[in-house]
Structures are given as structure tokens and as C-alpha cells.
């Protein structure tokens, strides 16, 4: 991969009415051979617990600690992908809980769905207001982007694989469909994920000029730029006419438009080495409809599914290439939403949704535990695929991109005591939580992939660890501490 300073697209011609037209792409800037590769940060989220009701163990946590840990069913993809020794497993963690008004730092309220998401991603205790599941602080991807993004084309990629909520009237999942929040002057604002792989592709490769279609691509860029230029001018003209509140709203819109303008204007890295223009994904898979709970025919028929398998693959490829081409250094991927009603049948061959699998959707006992473990494994497989890709991509310094990255996979729940139902062995529990962390940025994983029990620690400490590894000197919200043995 070649890195070079970002340049503004130069040499515009002025048209008769003052519009700009771009000349063909200039030669890329001088390679700065002395530049060290940037650090990359990734957080993946799985809307799934890892255990099964009635079981006092799961099929994720290895028996052995340290390197060379034994791989159980839920982590089988790590072996299949040949990356077990690049991925550490941190286990035995928990999120404390409390009743409204008494939620401990970094904790959640007693009610389960979906109150663990907010403290995991932000480190700030969840809201005590019933129904408010939004993060109460900025999330780690935004914190990382503040430091790492610099002049990259995309400050942070925010993706979601699960295309819809698939249940009831809450079509977009609300807070359950988001894991990225930023701080806007003291107000925590959700960041909408890109769900459409097509849009994610178009967004990521904005401005790329494939060598076999230079004229056509430049023409399209020119038109895009012309349109956005005019829109920006008019937005700027409109702003002072608005009242203060509306001005704030439009300024935010204007800021994002300027971001688009900048991305249209920036010179893209040359397509050489590992940096390549991926094949266009085409139209997005259709959005699946709702399947009634227990309707095995509906699940078997493919409802509640929008080819999330392909979506995950496409979005993973984009993250990998974004890191490779230095288009972005930060990415978040919400594989599945909190309380995930995604149809598991196309993924693991069981006619139920992921949430119901944890509630005897295909049966109890070992069958149920295996089903939950296979769902976990599906998430692990996509996370692992990203790890593998980055491991196989050479970075500027001759090492791999993975060696300059920190990647984490967090799960919505573990297993154990559920204070809501008072069941001792429930999947509605933030006890016995696990997380995966891969990459070697900043000396992360000095002993390769290891199993590290972090008994009683908070899952967000894994994010703290990843942030520290990439040089972000900030811990998340109210959760302090790192998994020290994972830092060199």
C-alpha cells in the first residue's frame, strides 16, 4: 500500500457561468517512505448473549488460559480461518445493574432488553428513564476518530449488517439499531449507520477513478461536484434567514454537505498494491418481511432476512479495504441489533430467529445451547474474516495491516443471574460476558491470541485496551482500566 498526503483535486476550469470542471486525475504525490502506518480501530457488536437458559457454562469460553487456548463451538471459525493465534478472548466480565436512579457507574437498569448496549459502547451507565436505551456518552469509535481520523477521507465508518428490526412496529430498532454516538457540544447524538452495502460502497469509493473508465468516472464526479457546489452555496444563503434553532439544524446539514464536498474533492489513493477498487456490489438484497414468532414455515421460507450473510461479507470487505487504502482508520460494525429477531435459518439452518433461539425456539438443553453457540459463531466468523483479511494485507512498514490495528467484538449479553426474572441461569444476564480482541497495534496481544479471564471486569475495558493500543489516551465513560496483560 502506498500512503501519501491528501491533496485537493486541482486544476479546475471555470465554466461560462462559473462552474468548476475537473481535469483528469493528477499524478499522485510523492511517497513518504518514512511515514509509519496509521493505527486502525474497529468495534464489532453482536446482539446476542452467549449462553443458554439453565446452563452454567457456554460454548465460547476456553478451558485453558493463555496462548493456544482450546476452541469451542462458538469460536470454531477462528480455527477454520486459521487466526486463533491472532485473536484474544477475554472472559468472565460483567456489567453491574441497579434500579432506576441507582444505576452504578458503567451499569444498566434491571430490565434486560436492551439495556446492556449503552454501557458497553460508551462506558457510561444507561439511562434510568424507562424505554431510553440510547448511549449516554460518546462511543469508542467516535472517541478513536477524534484522534486517529486526521485527514482521512472518512472520519469513521458506521455500518450495520442487520437490515431491519423484523418485529412489530419498531421497524428501525430505534436505539437497538445503533452503536455509534457522538458528543455535539455536550449533547449525545446518535450517528446513523449506513445499512445499504451499495451506499457504503459508493460512499467509500467516492472519487475513485478506475483506470478502465477514466472519462466516464470523471464526468460523473464532475456532475456530482457541480450539484453539491450549488447546493452548498444555496444552503449558505439560506442559513442567515433562519431562526436560531433552524439555523442549528441546517448548519449540521451544511457541515455534512461540506464533508461530502471534501470527499468529492480529495484525491483518492492510487489503485496499486493491496489498495484496489472492489467490484460494485450491485443492488442491495431486498428487505425481508416480518415472520411471526414460532412460524417455522415463515423462517424456513426466508422471511425476517435480507441476506445478512452477503451484507456482512460486503461490509467487511469495505472495512478491510478502507483500512488498507487509508480511507478511514476507524470503523464500527453492528452485525445484529439488540434483541435480534434476524432469521437464523439461512445462517445456521434452524427455523427460528436469533432471539427466540435463546428462549427454546428450536428446543432446550444441548440443542438450544448449540443453536445459541452457532449464532455466536456466525458473528465470530465475520469478525474473524476481517481479522484474516487485515492479517493478509501488507502494510506500509512491511508488516500486516492487522499488526497496526486493534479490533474488538463485543456481545450484548453473557449468562447468569437475571435480576428482572430472578432466574439464576438466564441469557438475560450481563454476567459471564466475553469479548474478542485482535490486532497488534501499540504492542497489543504481545503473546498472540490468548485466553484472558478478566473476572469481574467490565466488557468496556476491552475497548479501553484497544483504544490504548492505538494511541488514544482516553478511557470510556465511567469504566476505567484495561486488560493489562494484552498490552505490551
Amino acid at each position, binding site marked *: 500500500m502506498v500512503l501519501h498526503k491528501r491533496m485537493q483535486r486541482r486544476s479546475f476550469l471555470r465554466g461560462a457561468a462559473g462552474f468548476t470542471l475537473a481535469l483528469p486525475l493528477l499524478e499522485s504525490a510523492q511517497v513518504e517512505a518514512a511515514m509509519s502506518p496509521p493505527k486502525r480501530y474497529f468495534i464489532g457488536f453482536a446482539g446476542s448473549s452467549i449462553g443458554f437458559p439453565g446452563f452454567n457454562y457456554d460454548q465460547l469460553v476456553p478451558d485453558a488460559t493463555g496462548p493456544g487456548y482450546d476452541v469451542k463451538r462458538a469460536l470454531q471459525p477462528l480455527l477454520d480461518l486459521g487466526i486463533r493465534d491472532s485473536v484474544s478472548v477475554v472472559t468472565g466480565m460483567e456489567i453491574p445493574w441497579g434500579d432506576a436512579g441507582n444505576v452504578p457507574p458503567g451499569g444498566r437498569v434491571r430490565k434486560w432488553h436492551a439495556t446492556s448496549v449503552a454501557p458497553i459502547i460508551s462506558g457510561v451507565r444507561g439511562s434510568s428513564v424507562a424505554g431510553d436505551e440510547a448511549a449516554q456518552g460518546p462511543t469508542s469509535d467516535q472517541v478513536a476518530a477524534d484522534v486517529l481520523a486526521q485527514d482521512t477521507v472518512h472520519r469513521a465508518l458506521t455500518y450495520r449488517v442487520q437490515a431491519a428490526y423484523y418485529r412489530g412496529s419498531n421497524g428501525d430498532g430505534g436505539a437497538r439499531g445503533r452503536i455509534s454516538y457522538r458528543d455535539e457540544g455536550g449533547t449525545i447524538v446518535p450517528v446513523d449507520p449506513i445499512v445499504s452495502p451499495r451506499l457504503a460502497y459508493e460512499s467509500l469509493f467516492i472519487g475513485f477513478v478506475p483506470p478502465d473508465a477514466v472519462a466516464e468516472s470523471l464526468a460523473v464526479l464532475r*456532475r456530482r461536484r457541480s450539484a453539491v457546489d*450549488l*447546493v452548498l452555496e444555496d444552503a449558505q444563503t439560506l442559513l442567515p*434567514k*433562519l*431562526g436560531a434553532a433552524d439555523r442549528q439544524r441546517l448548519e449540521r*446539514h451544511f457541515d455534512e*454537505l461540506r464533508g461530502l464536498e471534501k470527499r468529492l474533492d480529495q484525491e483518492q489513493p492510487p489503485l496499486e498494491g493491496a489498495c484496489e477498487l472492489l467490484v460494485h456490489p450491485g443492488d442491495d438484497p431486498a428487505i425481508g418481511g*416480518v415472520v411471526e414468532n414460532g412460524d417455522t414455515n415463515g423462517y424456513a421460507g426466508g422471511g425476517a432476512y435480507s441476506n445478512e450473510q452477503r451484507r456482512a461479507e460486503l461490509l467487511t470487505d469495505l472495512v478491510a479495504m478502507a483500512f488498507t487504502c487509508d480511507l478511514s482508520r476507524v470503523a464500527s460494525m453492528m452485525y445484529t441489533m439488540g434483541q435480534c429477531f434476524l432469521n437464523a435459518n439461512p445462517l445456521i439452518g434452524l427455523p427460528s430467529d436469533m432471539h427466540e433461539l435463546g428462549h427454546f425456539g428450536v428446543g432446550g438443553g444441548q440443542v438450544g445451547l448449540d443453536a445459541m453457540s452457532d449464532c455466536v459463531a456466525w458473528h465470530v466468523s465475520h469478525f474473524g474474516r476481517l481479522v484474516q483479511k487485515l492479517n493478509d494485507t501488507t502494510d506500509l512498514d512491511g508488516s500486516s495491516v492487522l499488526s497496526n490495528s486493534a479490533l474488538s467484538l463485543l456481545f450484548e449479553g453473557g449468562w447468569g443471574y437475571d435480576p428482572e426474572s430472578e432466574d439464576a441461569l438466564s441469557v438475560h444476564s450481563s454476567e459471564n460476558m466475553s469479548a474478542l480482541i485482535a490486532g497488534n497495534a501499540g504492542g497489543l496481544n504481545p503473546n498472540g491470541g490468548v485466553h484472558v479471564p478478566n473476572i469481574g471486569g467490565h466488557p468496556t475495558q476491552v475497548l479501553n485496551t484497544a483504544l490504548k493500543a492505538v494511541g488514544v489516551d482516553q478511557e470510556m465513560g465511567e469504566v476505567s482500566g484495561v486488560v493489562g496483560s494484552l498490552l505490551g
Partner: protein
Amino acid sequence: MLTSMALALATGCYTGLGASGDGGTEGAGSGTGSGAETADADSASDDGQEIDQAVLDRVGASGLRRLTAVEYAATVYDLVGVDVDAALLLPEDWRQPFDNDYTTQVVSQALIEGAELLAADVAALVVADIGLREAVVGCTPKSTADAECFRSFITTFGRLALRRPLTAGEVDRYAGLLVEADESDDFYAAVDVGLRMFLQHPEFLYRVELGVAVADVPGVFRLSDHEIATRLAYFLWGSTPSDALLDLADAGELHTTDQIISVASLMFDDPRARARVGRFHALWLGYEQLPHGPTLAAAMQAETQALIDRVLFDDGSPWQDLLRAEETFVGATLAEHYGLPAPADTELSDWVPYGESGRQGLLSHGTFLSAMAKVDDSSPTKRGILVRSRLMCQDIPPPPPEVNVDDVEPPEGTCKEDFYREVHAQGNCAGCHNLVDPIGLGLEHYDHRGVFRTVENDDPTCVISGDGMLDGVPFNGPAELSDLLLDSGTLNGCVTKQIYRFAMGRSELGPLDRAFVSSIVDEVGSDVELDLMELLLRFVSDEAFVLRREEEAE
């Protein structure tokens, strides 16, 4: 001219022709932007007319409203005749229960890039289709860089897209896009850029309201005729004002109360009004997205839409008749689902009488009965909340966070009905649950799919009584509940409030908003039969409807 415009209004056609906006009004930029005048409490004037303080006291705050995904798609279809599923590319609109609460809208990279890609898609579809592009452009270019034709396109389409005539300066600037035609040696390349630009324009994506400052009333503005046209169109049609509606605005004929009433009355004849009223009900009563497979969900929604069409539009009957209907529109499959006789022609849907089934009106539709269901069964509590909060507009506090509301199952050997009656009605839980559970228990004969049952799903030995209570009055089933609600005197006020929330794009109402609602309810009456069309006319003809108040900045 009014007659021809009325016809055009009624059909809602994009004619491609309209009044030239060249050098017309200043457009939406005519407002001063912020009320800097100091208040003079003794007078307030609007175009020289005094505005009654009582009117000012019911002008709620309003802000920049972005088109929802559904509104975007409808707007694009009406503008250029192209079908796009905007929800695939735009961030989702939160349901509160309405999808158009502007106070929840946020801006993101996903929005900006989704809007750009959508604009590109629409432009490509239009340019690729000879018929569409001829309709949109409105003239045939005589050359690759036919400036006159391009200028005409900019002027005409721009007026429709931005919902106001363009200024001369804007036309000049946008006409400069013709340079793309030279670059590409293709006139329609310039059209492509023009379409992309208009569909990303802030005045397309957002409903910008500036208006004219009301003298001596800081922060209050009277909408321009074009802004009134836009408010009317998105309220009654969920889409952009038509060419004819804009013509009326251009001519200053959307200014007085009589003019607005006249136009709005004609707008009800448009099919979009039916769809809009249907959508209002679906979002309001929680059945816009149903927890069923697509075939059943579609059949149920068609059933309820048919009732709305018939009662409110075809028959012009009171809104209350939605709760009184003694027959329903179903096909053979849905009829069987409900246990009703099939239509005479089993290949078609038709009206089927309820007979002695105990069903009556909308509250016995699968749509209503499915809303707020639990995963695999009905929830008496949630149904009661649905009735109290959505139909009676009563505030039911959420459960304390420490209470388990998920997967609540009766202990083995305990019937669900007994569990709800005995467990929920105890201790600290009783206060809230006694408000809602008795209502839901009265609907328990109908499961979460609207199917009639006599015993509980999980235990056939548990016979369902279906005995419910609303504010101390017993009932059994949706027919009797409907009758109680009709007698409760709460429906008119609640319908009016919900319409206000939908119309103004705010879920949370402040004192000024409530004053607007109250003024209408006081005038219409709480216990009378409610003519929904008249109510909507009352809305749009209120002096406060054409005023806006700026929000406080955060």
C-alpha cells in the same frame, strides 16, 4: 381558471406546465429570519390585519422539517413519475408513533450520502426514459446546448421541486449547469445535474418556512402562500404541492381563510388524501408494521383502509362510524381467519357482515388487535395501554425499570386471566395496571392475530371470560368496548390531538399546541359526531395554521 385549477388539484397531476416563476416572488427567502422586534403588547398586525391575541396564544413552535422517507418517495413520484424506495437509502424515521417528528431528526453522513445517491438514481431513471424526461424537461432541445429549453426546465422544475418560484438570480445560476451539456455533448447530461442538484437542495429535503414577521410580535411569522401550499400538501397528501396548488400560491389565492378552505376541500378528492388519512390511522394506532407474514399483514391493512375509505370518504360518515361498522372488507382467507363467512365470490374481497360474532368496527380488525402484541400472544396490559394512550390520549406512566415486563408467564397451573387479575392488581402495581389490564382483558377473546378463541393458547383448561371494564363499566369484546368509548366523550379530543401531532410534526405538545387543540375541540364539541373532513378543514382554516412561531435554540 379556478375550475381548471380545481380539476388539476383533484387529479394531482404533474402537468409539466405552470406559471413561469421567473422573477416572481422572492421565494421563501422573504422572511427576516428571526424576530428581533421588541414586543408591543397592545397590537399585532398581519398585512395590516389585527391578529387576535387568542390566535397568537395558540401558535405553537415549528421548525425545519425534513421529508420522511415515505414523503420523499411520494414527492419524487409526483414530481417525475419515478418509484423509489427511499427507505433503502435514507436513515430510518423513528416512529413516535408518527414518523414525522422533526424534533427527533438528526443529520448524518448516512443521510447526506443517501440523499445524494437517491438523487443520482432518480436523475438517471428520468434521463434514461424518453417519456419521463420529456415530461420533466417540458421542451425538446433544439441543440445540445439549447439554453432556452434548459432555462425553461430549470424554471419550471425548480419551482415544483423547491415549492416556490425561483428568483431570477437563482434561474441564472442554475441555468449555468448547461455547461455540462457541452462537456458531455448531451443536453440531458445537464438535466441530470440539474435534477441531482434540486433533489439535494435543502429546500427540497426540508420544508423551510420563513414567512413574514408579524409586526410587534417577536418570533411569530405569517406563512407565505407558497408555504401554506406546502403545509397543506404534506398534511393532506403527504406529498409536494401540485402545479395547480402552486399556481394558486403564485396568484396570491392561498391567503384568506375562504381560499384555504376551498382548496383543501378539493384536495380531499385526491386519492392521496385517502392514503394519507389511512397512514395517519396506521401510525396512530400502531399497525403500520404488523408482526405477521406479508400476506396476512397486507390483507389486514387493506381491510382497515377499506373501512376508512368507505366511512370517511365514500359515505362521508362520522369518524365514530369506524368503531360502529357492522361489516368488514375481507377476502376468503381473512374471513376464515376471523371465523366469518366468506364473500360470495371467493376470488375477491368484499364486505362481509359481522352478524353475531361480537365484532364491530375497527377495534375488531386484525390491525388493531395485533398492535402492541407480545411475541406470541396478546398482552392485556399492552392493549389497555393502546386504548388509554392512543384512543383516549391519557398518559400512562412507563413501568419502573426494575419491573420485569418481558416474557411474563403465569406460574404453571395458573390461568393467564387469573394471573393478570390477581398478580398485577396488587400492591404498587395496582395503580397503573388497574387502569389498563381490565381493558385488555375485555379483548382477550381475540388473540394477537385477531383470531377469536374461547380458551387460552397455552392451556385449554383455562376458559377465557372476556370480561373487561372501562372506568368501572363492564364490557365484553370489541363491540361493547367501542360503544363505551363512543360514549366516553374523550374520542373527539384525542383524535384532534393526534391529528395535531401528525400535522405539525411534534409528538410532545406544549401549552400553545394544547391551546390550538382545545380551541378546536371546544368549537367542535366533545360529544358530537365527528366529521373528519370538517375537522381537517377546521384545522387548516384556523388563523394559527398559517402562522408559525420560532423555536428557542438549544
